[in-house]
């Protein structure tokens, strides 16, 4: 069983730009390594957090380089941990009625599935505007949901 409570709070300040997601993956992997998650569960966490960060870079900072992103990892209890991203981008507006992943796939939609992928993997995805300016994106993950997500999505091809 995962013992997330034994891990430590960690944070790292990143800058937007072409290497930002490379750095984010490196630090995230460092946060996640001690949790002893299944490698596919780790991939799902990376997928969800990368999608959140990609949204900040693309929609928040409009691909401008040199803007701050604070990445934080908090163990919550034995079974859950939280990863947050704080930016200084203009306040984000979330779509009121997001299409499901299945609908987006049916439509052959090239864009717009990042938020739904985060929601599919994380227990919760929350957005809060920061006091002065910017946004905080908080994703809570649990061992139980990650395991279920791996299991449900590991069916064999026909």
């Amino acid at each position, binding site marked *: 069983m995962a013992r997330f409570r034994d891990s430590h709070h960690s944070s790292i300040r990143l800058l937007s730009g072409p290497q930002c997601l490379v750095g984010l993956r490196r630090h995230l992997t460092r946060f996640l390594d001690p949790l002893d998650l299944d490698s596919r569960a780790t991939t799902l966490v*990376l997928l969800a957090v990368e999608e959140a960060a990609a949204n900040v870079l693309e929609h928040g900072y409009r691909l401008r380089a040199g803007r701050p992103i604070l990445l934080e990892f908090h163990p919550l209890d034995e079974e859950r941990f939280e990863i947050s991203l704080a930016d200084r981008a203009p306040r984000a507006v979330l779509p009121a009625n997001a299409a499901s992943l299945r609908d987006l*796939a049916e439509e052959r939609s090239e864009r717009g599935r990042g938020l739904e992928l985060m929601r599919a993997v994380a227990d919760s995805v929350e957005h809060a505007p920061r006091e002065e300016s910017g946004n905080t994106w908080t994703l809570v993950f649990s061992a139980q949901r990650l395991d279920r997500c791996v299991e449900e999505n590991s069916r064999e091809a026909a």
Partner: protein
Amino acid sequence: MKQPENTVHLISISRIRAKKGCEISEITLRGVVRETTEESFRSYLAQAGERSPLLLVNFAELDYINSTGLGILLEQSRSQEQRGGWLRIVSPSQTAAMILNLSGVADVLRVSETVDTVLEDLSRAA
């Protein structure tokens, strides 16, 4: 956990001759599809798709694909369908299969275990 390298390599683009003179283009890729490799992925798919309306994408050695990569895959499938064909995924790695299932892409595009399975399906349909 060691992360896969940030590259996508084109291993091969080949032609498979199926029954009744029908030709399939198969592309095999290795690596990851993420922000650093999305445009190469798009260009490799387009290149393979031009060879035949029937396109098989072999993901046996693909370690990761992000949401933009999934979008590119779906866009290419649309392009194949507009030419009267299809795009199918074959032999996905465990991780690629998991992401395709999670994203609903596996419900829309056919995912087959082997090339032989695809050829058998085609023979049955003929």
